[in-house]
């Protein structure tokens, strides 16, 4: 890793900029090439639709041996995302392998917005609410999207 950024990160960044994931804008910080500003559009036909969710993504020193660190900055009502915006995704934990990329991670996050999984919760109270009354939870999620997820 002579002289700064590994080639893998350079190539991934290039590709993210030239062929972005549809519905996701991810660009590196001007001063730190390992820190990405991410905006995820809420997927259609979900309570997050028309929301723009800000996230931060950081590639640790030993990336890709360890997964990127990822967090929602925008408040979001979701059973797998806690109050601090941390995400419960196995790809970001034990299922991580160095063959996965920033792109795959972002796609998984998009998938999580489309299909919340209250059975594997990070935000316990949200998950409980989601299981007890899905219609009401979806309404709350929609409300939060309207209030917080507007850029």
């Amino acid at each position, binding site marked *: 890793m002579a002289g700064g950024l590994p080639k*893998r990160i350079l190539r991934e960044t290039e590709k993210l900029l030239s062929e972005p994931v549809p519905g996701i804008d991810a660009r590196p910080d001007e001063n730190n090439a390992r820190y990405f500003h991410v905006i995820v559009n809420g997927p259609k036909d979900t309570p997050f639709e028309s929301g723009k969710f800000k996230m931060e993504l950081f590639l640790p020193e*030993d990336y890709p*041996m360890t997964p990127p660190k990822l967090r929602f900055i925008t408040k979001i009502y979701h059973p797998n995302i806690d109050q601090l915006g941390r995400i419960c995704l196995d790809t970001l934990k034990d299922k991580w392998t*160095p*063959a996965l990329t920033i792109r795959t991670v972002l796609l998984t996050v998009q998938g999580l917005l489309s299909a919340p999984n209250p059975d594997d919760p990070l935000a316990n109270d949200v998950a409980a609410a989601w299981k007890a009354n899905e219609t009401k939870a979806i309404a709350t999620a929609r409300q939060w999207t309207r209030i917080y997820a507007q850029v």
Partner: protein
Amino acid sequence: MSDSDYEHDDEDKDNDDDEPDYLSDPDDEFFDQVEPVLKPPPGLMAKEPRGPMGYLDFKFTCIGPDELMSRMHDIVKQVNAIFELPPCTTRILLSHFNWDKERLLERFYDGNQEKLFKDAHIVNPFRQARVPVGNSTILSVDVICDICLMETSHKQLEGLECHHLFCIDCWRNYMRTRIEDSGNALAIPCPHGKCDILVNENIVYRVMQPFPDVIRRFQYLSAQTFVQQHKLMKWCPSPGCTFAVEANSTRGVPVMCNCGYRFCFSCSSPAHEPVSCKYFQLWVKKCEDDSETAHWIHANTKQCPKCKATIEKSGGCNHMVCRNVNCKADFCWVCLGPWEPHGSSWYNCNRYNNSNAKVARDGQAQHRQALERYLFYYNRYVNHMKSLKFEDKLYAQIEVKMRDMQKLGLAWIETQFLKQAVDSLCHCRNTLMYTYVFAFFLTKNNHSILFEDNQRDLEMATETLSEYLERDINSDSISDTKVKVQDKSTYCERRRQVLLDYVYEGYESDIWEFNMM
């Protein structure tokens, strides 16, 4: 751990040079072996019967941390004598079957081998390409490693039999991360995202050869996993002890570690013979809940609702008057409300109608009976437990006596009978303690009466020995003492053995009936 622990002499017979096996060329001959072995060699399947093993057949050995790896390699070798697969493949297969050789052999020859390899996350060794990793015809061409995206000479690529190749630096980083973070060295998958083939020891030794610290950690984790997976092995639960115990069956029988700790081989709790693991756990829970004792207090006493003094109900009348002379509150025993509105008769208590009253009273009587029964066994159990707690003190006293005897000219070895007697005493007390748990759950029948006779005999013998060791020993001459102590402790051991044999034979012939309580 020495390198020789890692000799896989199935691969090359002339392995006596100093070079550890994991440094050898990756192009092992096994890649050329494509003849599938589909039929078991003659005589293999005629294995010993695997029926239930008798109590007396139970055997165990204690294995030190240094012997674990060679124990693991022994099993691999035994299986490989039949399979002729690469040892690293056999090890993953064995791990998949929790080191149950017989089950692996059965599956290997009875079932669908393709599926077996798939389930164990290894590439079918009989279907492997003849071209070994790193020996391609396109040697001169540079390729791009899929992880770091750097150009690498083809020679520098490494991979498992699934042929997902990555550069050696990426492999090193990957293994270091996985081995340092993971608790299971035998479950690291190929780094390719969609491949579940497991990393084997060969590639670890080959790739990590310049990093002995990582290799050591890998070996350590392998041994940990080995003991955890092997059904007939248990770690000694004594804090800080690094020994493991291997037995020939998973029975709930006590074993003794080299460190001196006695524990149940099946549930790893402190030794609890003769009671079975199931009823031992039930008992522990019952005592922990402490609900029984709490209930006893609850059933027999109440607090004055006004001054909180404890009131015990003695007569049958529910009109209570507090005994505290400064209080003298009138209240109802049943609802603890003031007595006044109840009028002249307790039937007026609005929470207490006639039929409920009877049920409650009967229930209370029954509960009381059950409780008394429990307390009977519990008190005796606790008694022995308390006595056992004095064992340290007794060992210290005996130590002094042994030194006194040595001053009088006895050899150290000649004084050992005293320590052995205290050992016997502790074993007997421990067994006695749990006979009360056994008896608590036992349903009365002819056999239970015989058991109780045995229990009484052991109890008497044990108390005699205990008393003698604590008191009478000073009044006798040394030669008298030795004879008496040895006689008494031999007698105790014999009573203990008689009791245990009877209980365990009873387990086998199914004569005991238990009540869950």
